[in-house]
């Protein structure tokens, strides 16, 4: 059963707590950012709009990073679809960072290896899948949810929960983006 994230931009206030919780739980050094919050602003004064998006690896169905890896260091776990990188195999070539459309894989400057969101499955710090991920647990406004994609599809306005960046039904990334409600001040 493919697992992934649900994200409701309507309540994300771009506080970045998810990034810090991710980093703290998984003991990620300063440098690689497994999760990143960005703001997209549109319009012209005074009709301005903005949307915040918190993004991490989406554990894609046909993970392009996996295909690009020359040493098969990247694998997709059969039972939950989580995309993992084997640090022992990784040669730090960076092909995956070019292949990923979302900039999810990050090269560590100190280790010279690729790392990214592993759905809180860092060795020795694995969170069972029925617990919230660190990013989800910390979020002050409940903007992030994790779980099986079939369950996430029922959250929010399920009929309008759209999948980000369609790449063919098989290869959809594991992110539900509730983009139905318009955001910010109206025109």
């Amino acid at each position: 059963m493919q697992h992934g994230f649900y994200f409701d931009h309507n309540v994300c206030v771009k506080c970045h707590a998810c990034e810090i919780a991710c980093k703290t739980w998984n003991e990620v050094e300063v440098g690689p950012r497994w999760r990143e919050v960005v703001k997209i602003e549109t319009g012209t004064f005074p009709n301005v709009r903005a949307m915040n998006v918190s993004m991490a690896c989406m554990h894609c169905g046909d993970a392009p990073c996996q295909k690009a890896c020359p040493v098969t260091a990247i694998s997709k776990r059969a039972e939950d679809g989580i995309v993992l990188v084997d640090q022992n195999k990784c040669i730090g070539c960076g092909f995956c960072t070019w292949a990923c459309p979302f900039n999810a894989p990050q090269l560590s400057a100190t280790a010279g290896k690729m790392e990214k969101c592993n759905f809180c499955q860092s060795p020795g710090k694995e969170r069972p899948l029925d617990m919230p991920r660190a990013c989800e647990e910390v979020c002050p406004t409940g903007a992030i949810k994790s779980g099986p994609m079939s369950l996430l599809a029922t959250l929010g306005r399920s009929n309008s929960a759209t999948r980000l960046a369609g790449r063919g039904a098989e290869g959809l990334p594991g992110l539900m983006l509730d983009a139905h409600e318009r955001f910010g001040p109206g025109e």
Partner: protein
Amino acid sequence: MGEMRNLGEDLARIKSAKVIKSFCYTCPWQCPTEVFVRDGQVVYHKGNPESPNNIGSRCAKGMASWWLTRDPDRLKFPMRRTNPKGEPGKFERISWDQAFTYIAEKLQAIAEKWGPEAVAYTCHHDPNTVFFRHLLGDLYGTPNNYTHTSGCEQDRRAACLTLFGHPFPMHDFANSRYVILWGMNMLGANQGLWESRALLEAKKKGCKLVVVDPNFTETAQKADEWIPIQPGTDGAMALAMCRVIIDDSLYDREFVEKYCDGFSGFRDHLREKDYTPEWAAPICGVSATTIARLAREFAKTKPAMSAIFKGSGYYTNGADAGRACYILDAITGQVDKPGNLHLKDWAPLAAPVNIPEEAKRRPQKPPLHVAMGYPLAPDLPNARLPDAVIHGKPYPVKALFVQSTNPVMSDPNTDLMKEMFRHLELGVAIELFMSETAIECDIVLPETSFYEHAEIRQGLWLGAEVVLCQPAIPPLGEAKPLYDIVQGIAGKMGWGQHFPYKKWEDWGELVMKDIPMSVEELKKKGFWANAIRYNRVPEGLATPSGKVQIHSQAYADAGFCPYPIYTERSVIPDAEYPLQLTHSKISMHCNVLTQNNPLLMEICGENWAEINSSDASKYGIVDDAYIIVESPKDKIRIKAKVVEGLVPGCISVRHGHGFGHWAMGSVAKGKGAHSNNLMDNFTNPITGANCYNECKVRIRMA
């Protein structure tokens, strides 16, 4: 999913850690937490899921705060200045005993020569300052024990005290159907996490959110309407809205008759002054139609709330702007009912020590704010402190204690603030870092972080609440909790018997004596919360009339209009300096304390100045390039962000006084720009608030 299990305990097991209930003191909202400790180290922490304050969640600043427990730049032992004042301090390590002796001797000498009133204490909002208040206030006899409000929500506090007799109302957004926020970036500051969540949940249920702010803030981003008002004109728009509501008879007749003092006088005042939407429109840059429409919507939709925090108070006209914004709540009867501004109950916390009456010394002089001519100031007018220290006006101040506060960095006119410290006979900093203020002091004492000491304080939630922070790990180096520092100084001054505690639980029992929870239970649970109570207005408020004080005799007695008036702010841009400097905050940083945290600096490592694209074209400014922002007083180099979400004619420096540290620590030092020396020390004439936005500037590419 797993509703029967305890997430904190389960997660702690994964980290092989023990859970300690505590709270976070990165900002004064103090979210209750669960701190994971393994081998004397904090290895993770999360929100306390039972607490109504944060419902298990955290903000970025709080989440990153574990760095404090291992920051190599933390102060580790007491130090004394070795070089003359007037140059950045050089320090030598001394023992705690030497530090206590030095401070006690200086205090005794100052009391003999100048009187104890020549000693002032300022702090952030640490409840443990209560110990210092007992030492310096009760025993030593100075009335000058202050916090930091003049750099914060001083005007809001003054307005709330005047109108409602309450210093710090909460916001019951969860039940609101119409919310107007004036210069208040609730979701960007993201401090009361339950308030942020409640506002967004109310919105989902159809609450209309209107944000009146020159800046398209994180809160404006979520608003149904963003009203890009001209800076420093909130008062004009709020008064015009009051006029519409009264003229259209949309006010709550029963409420104003029964529970407000001065309604009819206020009605006549608005008419005499001719405050109308047509009058306000050109001042505010908001159409008269919009002002009238918002007034009618606000009055007709209930429950509703009109609220301010800091923004409206950054100008010399901010005090009355604040009163006007809250009078909107009063005349529509929207006070302390569900969905309104909430006049929360405070928990009956008792004193941590018992100072006998006969041991107390009565101050012989009025407190500084009164002597300075600001009797209505709820806290020290910080910008006027240099007058007392440098010029002895209204009376001399010779010693200053700064605890967990950094006025050289956070108050306007940096040069003057530095100069002030050079005139002190005794400057003591009690700090985590060698701050910009500490480096100007004579003695620097290392305080423990909130991971290393205990505090029991009021929780900032709707119901009466007590929150606890308890030591999770041993103190870093020789750092001491404030209660031990006070005990040490008191011992040297012959008052040791008044601070008899051996461990924090000893004074904790005294503090908790009227709370139906023992210290032991509190340690297990982390907080105590009472039920939410509404409708205090009919019970009578803590105002002179017991009613909502629309007419303020205290204002009249102090020489001001008893009703709010609109006056222009003090500094208006001109041909030479064509832009108004304004300030807004950043959600990843809190005040001047978080800039040495590499986790936060990775996300936001410098501040910036926002400028509208039309002004950018006019002055040849390129996005992401460095620019020079120059006032008549000083200039800074700062990164520009060209945006649409800002009123043309302004620049908005985000987190202006939190960046550009020159002392604090290796990560913070030299990052971003410090904007406080651009401005002079304008002070609100009524409340004594710092006026950070009273400044005009010109800009060019660096």
